[in-house]
């Protein structure tokens, strides 16, 4: 059976906290997993001085995470996001990864938008006062 | 909510700086518990008595939950003594130290029982009051509940938060000035506060100085004494006894001290930070409220900076030989009886 790295929800209503677990794909969220390798708190701790970004805390056993990835465990999307942030995986939709999967010709990197176009569209929006109108024209 | 906090019929101690509390404290009889009663009744009476002051706004259950039967204490050690001997002399003789050694003979008792309410002093609202940021425990509680109090830089709205050693708490400056300052009477009064305050202070200074003079040299007519004829009589009756034998030097020294204090109080309004501002909820320029001095003390377990209205809870209150740090108006015997009540072995 497929082994997945995924999140298991704990905590109360409106106060979720997750275990990062390694479990069989078809076991329920509340089941006892194969292994708990970390936790993830999605509720950001506000900055001490009230300025800047809040902090989300993640605890992870990196060595075990690497081991399970090596055995072919498949991370779920949220787990993939967290692991890729640590550099254990490529981001799921990164160009490099997609190109390596489907071949170089299949995936074209998106052209960076022309700066002039952007400014024009913004000005157009301001002039008309209806967002999206100019975008359609373009 | 209790309606009559400072009823005059039966004087009670209250954790507040009001003049009613002061008057009640001035005439309250020595708290005593009749030995005619049964032990249970004595404990009950003592408990009822001490709860008039300590956490009067809390339910009994709230206090019983934080009650601890263990008291904190500390022993003052001396470098020289620690260096000279190794402690074996404490067990010499018959096992309780050398006989006839004066320094060891008079060991002052450690008033453990006076420490009964030390967990109460850990409460945030009590600490706010003890740091002289609020004029009563109830006001301290209000400041916490209304969100004016921060602990370690974070807003803490639970008055029952138990401070830990090293916690820094702070209260909004305006609220502290409101609690410790004179009340604002009216818009008009606040506007002309500088003139009236100065005039009032001068008048009072004259009056009181005159009173002192009257004690020293009788028969001088002064402005202030006309308003209080009965007091004048009392002063006259008592003055011969006081002033005759007391040395003139001490008298003048005290006079000088009082005059200096008055000048310093007047100088408060010249402080650059103490400005006239009618939007404030207290009389500006700020002056200390009346009848505050007899309640003014800051216990040693707090370190307070009134410049910014921040304070640090250094450690738990401790008992030392001859000294209990937890403030309480009750004698040790009463507190001991109350302690026995809370032990729940009744």
């Amino acid at each position, binding site marked *: 059976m497929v082994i997945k790295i995924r999140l298991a929800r704990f905590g109360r209503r409106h106060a979720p906290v997750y275990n990062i677990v390694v479990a069989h794909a078809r076991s329920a969220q509340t089941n006892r997993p194969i292994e708990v390798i970390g936790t993830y708190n999605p509720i950001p701790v506000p900055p001490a001085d009230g300025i800047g970004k809040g902090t989300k805390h993640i605890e*992870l056993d990196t060595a075990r995470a690497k081991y399970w990835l090596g055995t072919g465990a498949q991370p779920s999307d949220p787990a993939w996001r967290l692991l890729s942030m640590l550099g254990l995986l490529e981001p799921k939709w990164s160009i490099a990864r997609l190109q390596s999967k489907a071949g170089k010709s299949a995936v074209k990197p998106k052209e960076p938008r022309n700066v002039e176009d952007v400014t024009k569209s913004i000005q157009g929006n301001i002039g008309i006062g209806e967002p999206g109108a100019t975008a359609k024209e373009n | 909510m209790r309606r009559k906090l400072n009823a005059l019929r039966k004087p009670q101690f209250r954790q507040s700086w009001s003049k009613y509390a002061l008057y009640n404290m001035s005439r309250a009889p020595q708290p005593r518990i009749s030995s005619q009663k049964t032990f249970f009744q004595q404990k009950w009476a003592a408990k009822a008595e001490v709860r008039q002051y300590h956490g009067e706004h809390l339910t009994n259950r709230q206090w019983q939950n934080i009650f601890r039967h263990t008291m904190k204490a500390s022993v003052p050690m001396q470098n020289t003594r620690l260096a000279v001997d*190794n402690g074996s002399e404490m067990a010499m003789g018959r096992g309780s130290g050398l006989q006839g050694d004066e320094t060891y003979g008079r060991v002052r008792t450690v008033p453990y029982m006076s420490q009964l309410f030390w967990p109460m002093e850990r409460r945030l609202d009590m600490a706010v009051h003890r740091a002289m940021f609020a004029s009563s425990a109830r006001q301290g509680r209000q400041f916490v509940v209304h969100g004016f109090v921060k602990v370690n830089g974070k807003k803490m709205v639970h008055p029952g938060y138990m401070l830990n050693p090293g916690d820094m708490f702070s209260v909004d400056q305006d609220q502290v000035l409101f609690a410790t300052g004179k009340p604002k009477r009216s818009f008009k009064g606040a506007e002309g506060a500088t003139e009236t305050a100065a005039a009032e202070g001068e008048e009072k200074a004259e009056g009181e100085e005159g009173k002192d003079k009257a004690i020293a040299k009788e028969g001088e007519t002064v402005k202030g004494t006309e308003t209080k004829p009965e007091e004048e009589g009392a002063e006259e009756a008592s003055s011969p006894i006081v002033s005759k034998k007391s040395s003139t030097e001490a008298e003048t020294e005290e006079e000088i001290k009082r005059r200096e204090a008055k000048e310093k109080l007047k100088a408060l309004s010249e*402080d650059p930070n103490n400005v006239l501002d009618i939007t404030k909820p207290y009389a500006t320029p*700020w002056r200390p409220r009346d009848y505050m001095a007899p309640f003014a*003390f800051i216990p040693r377990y707090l370190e307070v*900076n009134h*410049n910014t209205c921040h304070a*640090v809870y250094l450690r738990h209150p401790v008992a030392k030989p001859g000294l209990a740090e937890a403030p309480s108006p009750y004698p040790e015997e009463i507190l001991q009886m109350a302690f026995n009540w809370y032990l729940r072995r009744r």
Partner: protein
Amino acid sequence: MFAWLSGPGAVFKQPTGEPQYISSYDRSTWERKDKTRNPDAFVQPYPFNRYFKSQPVLSDAFREDIYTRVKRDNHSIRQVSAALNVSIERVAAVVRLKQVEKEHVANGGKLCTFLTKALDQMLPVVDVPTRADGGSGSGGGGGGPFENIQELPIHSLARRQVFVPTSESREFTRADAGKEFGLPAADVMVPHPDLVTLAKERNEIIPLEERIMRQKERDRLEEIRREAEKERAAERRRQKKVLEVGRWKWCFTEAETGKVGFRYGFPLPDRKKGHVKIPTHVS
């Protein structure tokens, strides 16, 4: 009541430059007691509790002095504590409070200096010691040091009574007593054990140079210990990895499988009756 307030109670209305407690007046005649005969009455805020005393507080100048010693002269808190006879935790607190004050001023905040001045008129205040050995100046505190810095808090292990039979010929010392309670000797447990060592060396008639040498050696060891501690703290900080991605900062901490996470089969009893819901600490 108002007769009393305008009569004998009038002295309490405004601060008089020194503590004015009810106990310093006779309760029947309302005459001021003799300060030389019963000095205790002048520091006792509550007339019936003779064990609670209003102890002097540090003056603003004293606090400033402590702050400059620690911050500008770069003395350790322990040194300042020993020099000024102010307990270690109080020195640390004063430095913290002064730091807050400086930051407050730097951010354009106003200070209630007038409040401090007014309270100085009501409280017993200790001013900066004039001599180097820490004897405090005049004020409510009298001539002695501000507080005893060698105060030994009674450890909870030492609260019980123990019956230890020993032979009469044997010396039962502080170290023995400590061992019975499972604690080190009181000489080590006091806040300033180095001061005890200094006093011992003074008694042993060791030449001054030798004493200075030994003290320097001890200071060096202390410095090494502090460095190591700092390094450990830095290591702990290095364990944490903070990334800024998108809207949030993400703080990754290294964990160990088996110890991390919520455990299965163990309910979270935080909604149970009797559970403390008020936070017990604020970090």
